[in-house]
């Protein structure tokens, strides 16, 4: 007991986590929130204590804590009148499963958590007008690719060595889930139809990052031979997704396309042979995650005031809601990699990861970045500028204290990430 006091404290925090999870399932909004708070707080404390004692070696420094922050922000994003206890429970579960996947380096464990974290997503789609088919395709393909990766060492020799086949399976699984083209339609449709706050969390937490990192550790010699082909795919995908964003008319679709562009850039960094590319991808993941959840909170705030249908078509919101416009610009600028944001840091590190032999890769990444920047400003202009519509939103209530706290925490975390990008460096 004397040798590992932090272990016992972590166990106690784990007990709090389990109790919180139980409370979150009780009927009533208050118990759901208290339970979620206890569960996430307990998880954060347990992660910090175990990592401090050296008993757990996370895949990413501060990765589990970042995921927990994203989850807490997504839970608090929705107004109390809309909140359902079951939904809070699902968001808590997703957050915990993804945070746990960042706390292990064992590929089977990470893969199992990756698959488990798909389950709450299925239940998010239990609502009228939302098709489960894209999710079904995504889950089936993802599970098949993960199974291929895990089974690769036991398969008879084929055209690809076992380790390269394993890594390829993991990359494909991650690409399907992150929506890297040609799989982007499976993800962009979610941005259009699902409640944004919930979807933003699921998209932002990105357990696929943990899967790819665990894959790199499990198949270290497979990265270098596969990198040229995978990176070529990633850059073409990024440029295509950038073009898709430019062509999109609805703001939700444009944001979805921007997210898939960034997913492609993250994939490019994650499959690069050097550590610099991985660091860039992680910075990109963290910045993108925070900005996605921030955008989700803002969209939820707008939808709660004018209704979901009108929110998609609303224009000229800068007049009644200048604070929201400013925050939207900050989050969207991060998503599109404007200088001074963590998105810029991530993109720069990813682009500079290798020198000399793939100039056209980086040229395509530049094109994607430029397109993303323009799409971001177009979405901003569409929603916040122009003549006010509908007219009754003239008396738009400003952000309330809860929303300010959530957005302030996200903005502060983004500021921290800009000041010290190495906080999310690979462990």
């Amino acid at each position: 007991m004397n040798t590992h006091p932090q272990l016992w404290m972590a166990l106690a925090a784990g007990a709090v986590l389990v109790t919180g999870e139980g409370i979150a399932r009780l009927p009533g909004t208050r118990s759901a929130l208290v339970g979620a708070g206890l569960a996430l707080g307990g998880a954060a404390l347990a992660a910090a204590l175990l990592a401090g004692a050296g008993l757990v070696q996370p895949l990413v420094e501060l990765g589990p804590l970042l995921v927990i922050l994203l989850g807490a922000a997504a839970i608090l994003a929705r107004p109390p009148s809309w909140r359902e206890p079951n939904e809070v429970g699902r968001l808590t579960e997703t957050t915990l499963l993804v945070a746990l996947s960042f706390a292990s380096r064992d590929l089977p464990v990470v893969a199992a958590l990756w698959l488990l974290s798909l389950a709450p997503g299925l239940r998010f789609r239990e609502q009228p007008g939302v098709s489960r088919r894209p999710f079904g395709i995504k889950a089936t393909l993802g599970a098949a690719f993960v199974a291929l990766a895990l089974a690769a060492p036991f398969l008879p020799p084929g055209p690809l060595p076992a380790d390269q086949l394993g890594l390829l399976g993991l990359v494909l699984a991650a690409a399907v889930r992150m929506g890297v083209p040609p799989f982007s339609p499976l993800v962009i449709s979610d941005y259009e139809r699902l409640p944004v706050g919930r979807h933003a969390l699921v998209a932002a937490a990105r357990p696929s990052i943990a899967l790819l990192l665990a894959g790199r550790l499990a198949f270290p010699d497979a990265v270098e031979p596969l990198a040229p082909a995978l990176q070529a795919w990633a850059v073409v995908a990024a440029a295509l997704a950038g073009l898709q964003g430019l062509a999109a008319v609805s703001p939700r679709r444009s944001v979805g396309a921007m997210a898939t562009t960034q997913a492609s850039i993250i994939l490019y960094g994650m499959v690069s042979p050097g550590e610099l590319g991985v660091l860039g991808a992680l910075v990109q993941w963290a910045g993108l995650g925070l900005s996605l959840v921030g955008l989700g909170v803002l969209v939820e705030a707008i939808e709660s005031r004018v209704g979901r249908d009108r929110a998609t078509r609303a224009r000229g919101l800068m007049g009644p809601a200048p604070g929201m416009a400013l925050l939207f610009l900050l989050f969207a600028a991060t998503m599109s990699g404007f200088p001074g944001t963590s998105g810029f840091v991530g993109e720069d590190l990813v682009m500079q990861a290798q020198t000399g032999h793939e100039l056209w890769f980086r040229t395509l990444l530049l094109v994607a970045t430029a397109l993303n920047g323009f799409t971001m400003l177009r979405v901003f202009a569409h929603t916040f500028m122009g003549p006010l519509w509908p007219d009754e939103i003239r008396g738009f209530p400003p952000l309330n204290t809860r929303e300010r706290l959530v957005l302030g925490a996200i903005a502060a975390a983004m500021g921290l990430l800009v000041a010290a990008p190495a906080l999310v460096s690979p462990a």
Partner: protein
Amino acid sequence: MRELVEVGVAGPWEGLASVLAGGLLASPLLGMVALTVPFLADRPLGEDAVHRISRVVAGLHLLLALALAGLALALGPLTVDLGRWYGDAQYALELRLRLDGMTTAAALVVAVIGLVVLRFSERYLHREDGHLRFFATTLLALACLDLVALAHELPVLFIGWELLGLTSFLLIAFFHERDEAVARGLRAVFSYRTADLGLLSTLILLHAEHASDVLGGAPRESGLLATTVGLLLLSTAAGKAGLAPFSRWLARSTEGPTPSTALFYAGLSVHTAPWLLLRAWPLYGESTVARAALVALGLVSALSASAHARTRSDVKGAVVMAGCAQVGLIVAEIGLGLHALAGLHMVGNIGLRVWQLLRAPGVIQLHRRREALLAGTLPGPRAVPAWLWLWSSEGWFEPLVQGVVGLVTGAAGLLDRASRAAERLAIGGRDERGRP
């Protein structure tokens, strides 16, 4: 990765220069934060408080720019390291600034014009809806311009360059309820983003070729790399300054408030383009093809913009396009290697165009009063004798302004020459790379 040769003095003076340079960059940013945070907390500042903050910031900014210029003059060129932002041993982005006669003169011009524009805007934007937004955006723009002016390496310049584009969009679309203003802002951004690919490609190309991205000094790259870099940078500069073939956005950029048009499209922002070409000279100066392209594009743009200016029916558009014609000539001068002339030309053009644009809103009233004074039906303003008023309104004031601007630019040129001499002394007659 990047080569850096420290020149000038070390020790406490370098520390002081770091503090002053950091303060110069931070002061507009802090001003912007001071305006924005109360606004986000739903307690937006009133006009008086906004004006007080902007005056303090602009005044402090000017003092710091003066101090830096004095320091550069007294001690010779200095490289100030503000620290590593991110990266590792393989690649890192270091925030380094260059303090010499040329860069500190540019920072001084930014500070003076910034002060004038902010002060002018206090009355011009009185009771306007986006009053606070305008001041916050303009302060951010000043910080970006400082970064562009003082950057020691291309990546640092790029940060200021890109953010300047964002502030430009926000100010063109300042009257955001008008569809036309928003569309024109988006057109400007589209041109910027397209043209900025050249700058980004340059950065990647230099890194791929293991070439230094340090700005300023004698030409050091040659061959295909120099030509490619020169042409890429020229395309970026053309986008920023509205030179051919990007001139359409500039002609439509006058939708924003007059002070922002003065600051951006007549004054500082369009001149960042020749500034980039001037500072990046070591990267492409050896290439005859790139230099010829500069001269050709500069002259074509000057002719085209001059013709455009003469056909404009609005005073703001005419002034902006006339300024653009001069920027074309400045680019041609840079291509010809006449850098001192280009520097003087830039400062003169900035001063003249900003003054013309700030005077533009009152031009009709000015004309009426002049007519009335000539007819003897209206007494001249009491504070100013009628002859002086008439003299200035007749347009004779412009040469005077140009004379003053010429004096300032002459002083800046001397400052630059002195600091170059000090630099040569400090490095024993060698260039930045230590070559004789």
